[in-house]
């Protein structure tokens, strides 16, 4: 079988891997582990040393995703990471032991037969996990359904409220999401729409999996009405008014992903040989963000933005409402850990949708040390990258257009993720009504994705939300320290959270680089500042 060529490897990383390390008292049981991300375009992987002591990256590799049969590309990456002979394929996994050249300095002698490190993988191949949400009131059960689906790593194909209309049903039949997450009504609450929707879904030609997570009183009736469909009934996502109960539905989505969605792409066989279960890529990222908040004391509150070609995903770890005099929360208390996905904000496939969003902005088109972006140049760039997503900027003007789009993604994804304040005048004075999450005091913001990794010194947040123009009613971070996942490791650490939560979290934080601080003036050349953040993960900084 033809195997795609690997991109040039990083010799320095391999030399670093082979360098004998000084054994420390807590280093007795270092653990190697592989994180793989099987994306729609590339299959990426990294070999890490985790366990006690300082976790670090040893090697990384990437190859174009073999869409016809996903394990082939994954095998190529594994073979490279573990220094296995060219004839090796993923089917040899059970018969393979770890070569002596890999993970040397672990205190073991080279003639010892060592088992392969655990391999954990995520997949977003073939469009990722597609979910439609059906609920009752848009601001309540529908919103909770959206948040649950997002936190399970899904991309939403549609959201529907109240009774499913004929056109809504036709849309579901046509878009064929992998899962319809169907909620609405507190336990013992609203029944009529749920009952009607059960009958309508029963008559529809939709043949994916339905998850019922609405009013528990209707569950038996739903089971009867939909006996001929693939149906999973879980606990209500909102059992009482305003109370979140996302975990059972999230778990149902994960199980369905494993049982039905990964089948037929070869991932089930890869899972059988590795002994680990694949996770949707964004769910792994959500888990990593949570693990960082749990295990890194300075990172209890932070935001991560994953800037992609098709979507911009925002993850926040921060309490929704902090109280305070003259402040009142209206509507749902959103969860402390929240993911949102913006399908119209992306640098390539979604560039034209993004440009339409940006057209309404009142933030001037200024760039940081780059030429100004004219509307004509922007339009030409948007058209090109929309049609040819692999396009890279070839001139300063195109660099500027790309930077402008990236800043626009961050601005709008953050504003939609964050809440808002509305002033209200009462006889006793002014009060503020808050909706959504108050992210103003969040001290740290991380950018991950191909674009930020390639431009780690560009002050994208400042470009997105210039301090001088920040509107007080937007509850976006006021003055976060910004960091970039400049090695683009987070998607490869995500899959390892299930097994090594603390080590993966610590390495994720250690591998970040700080974006140089800029003065509030947006016209600072991005090469002028030289703020050097101390880098606790030595191997990463000097070898890659």
């Amino acid at each position, binding site marked *: 079988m033809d195997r795609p060529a690997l991109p040039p490897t990083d010799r320095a990383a391999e030399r670093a891997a082979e360098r004998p390390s000084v054994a420390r008292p807590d280093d007795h049981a270092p653990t190697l582990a592989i994180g793989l991300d099987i994306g729609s375009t590339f299959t990426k992987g990294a070999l890490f040393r985790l366990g006690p002591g300082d976790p670090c990256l040893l090697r990384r590799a990437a190859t174009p995703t073999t869409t016809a049969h996903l394990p082939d590309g994954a095998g190529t990456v594994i073979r490279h990471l573990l220094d296995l002979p060219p004839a090796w394929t993923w089917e040899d996994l059970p018969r393979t032991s770890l070569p002596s050249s890999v993970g040397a300095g672990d205190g073991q002698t080279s003639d010892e037969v060592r088992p392969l490190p655990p391999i954990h993988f995520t997949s977003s191949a073939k469009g990722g996990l597609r979910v439609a949400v059906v609920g009752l009131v848009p601001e*309540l059960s529908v919103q909770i359904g959206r948040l649950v689906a997002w936190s399970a790593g899904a991309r939403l194909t549609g959201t529907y409220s109240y009774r499913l209309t004929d056109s809504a049903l036709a849309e579901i039949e046509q878009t064929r999401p992998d899962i319809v997450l169907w909620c*609405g009504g507190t336990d013992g609450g609203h029944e009529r729409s749920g009952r009607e929707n059960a009958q309508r879904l029963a008559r529809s030609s939709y043949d994916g999996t339905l998850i019922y997570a609405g009013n528990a009183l209707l569950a038996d009736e739903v089971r009867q009405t939909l006996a001929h469909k693939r149906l999973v009934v879980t606990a209500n996502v909102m059992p009482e008014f305003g109370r979140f109960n996302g975990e059972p539905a999230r778990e149902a989505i994960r199980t369905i992903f494993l049982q039905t969605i990964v089948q037929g792409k070869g991932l089930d066989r890869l899972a059988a040989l590795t002994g680990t279960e694949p996770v949707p890529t964004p769910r792994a990222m959500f888990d990593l963000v949570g693990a960082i908040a749990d295990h890194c004391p300075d990172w209890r509150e932070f935001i991560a933005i994953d800037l992609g070609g098709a979507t911009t995903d925002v993850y926040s770890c921060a309490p929704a409402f902090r109280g305070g005099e003259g402040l009142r929360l209206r509507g749902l208390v959103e969860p402390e850990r929240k993911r949102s996905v913006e399908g119209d904000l992306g640098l390539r496939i979604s560039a034209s949708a993004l440009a339409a969003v940006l057209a309404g902005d009142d933030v001037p088109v200024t760039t940081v040390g780059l030429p100004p972006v004219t509307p004509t140049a922007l339009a030409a760039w948007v058209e090109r990258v929309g049609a040819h997503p692999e396009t890279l900027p070839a001139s300063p003007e195109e660099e500027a257009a790309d930077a402008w789009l990236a800043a626009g993604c961050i601005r709008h994804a953050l504003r939609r993720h964050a809440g808002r304040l509305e002033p209200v005048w009462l006889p006793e004075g002014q009060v503020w009504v808050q909706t959504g999450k108050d992210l103003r005091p969040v001290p740290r913001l991380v950018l991950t994705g191909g674009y930020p990794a390639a431009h780690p010194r560009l002050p994208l947040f400042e470009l997105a939300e210039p301090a001088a123009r920040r509107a007080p009613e937007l509850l976006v971070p006021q003055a976060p320290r910004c960091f970039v996942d400049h090695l683009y490791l987070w998607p490869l650490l995500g899959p390892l959270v299930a097994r090594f939560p603390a080590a993966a979290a610590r390495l994720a934080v250690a591998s970040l680089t700080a974006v140089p601080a800029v003065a509030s003036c947006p016209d600072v050349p991005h090469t002028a500042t030289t703020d050097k953040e101390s880098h606790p993960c030595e191997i990463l900084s000097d070898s890659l």
Partner: protein
Amino acid sequence: MNTPPINIVLGVIGFDCHSVGNKILEAFFTEQGFKVTNLGVMVSQEEFLQAAIETGAKAILVSSLYGHGEIDCVGLREKCREQGLDDILLYVGGNLVVGKTPFEQVEAKFKAMGYDRVFGPDCDLATVARLLREDLAARQRAD
């Protein structure tokens, strides 16, 4: 199987911050066997409606104590009809208007707005609970 408790929604409407009476009402109606969704203070009409829909509430109990009750409460019945809550009971109580308007006039005004029962600030809660049960039973018979 036991009959599930009747859901009711409770809150102080508009930009009214009076929270003590609201907590008393929540405790009282819960003790009376109702399933109470208490939205607290400064509740908009939309929030009452959204909560009533999701919880399948049979009654909305609106409080207003700061004198702007009239302007805050007008239109709630129409919004209920618009949202398909045709049969829901609407109760309102508190210091509904500023000044010394006779209660009969206040009651007539709020009934004209579509509220089923209107109570002053010194009403007897046991009476309110009794009337609520009677009105709910009458609604059920009518179905």
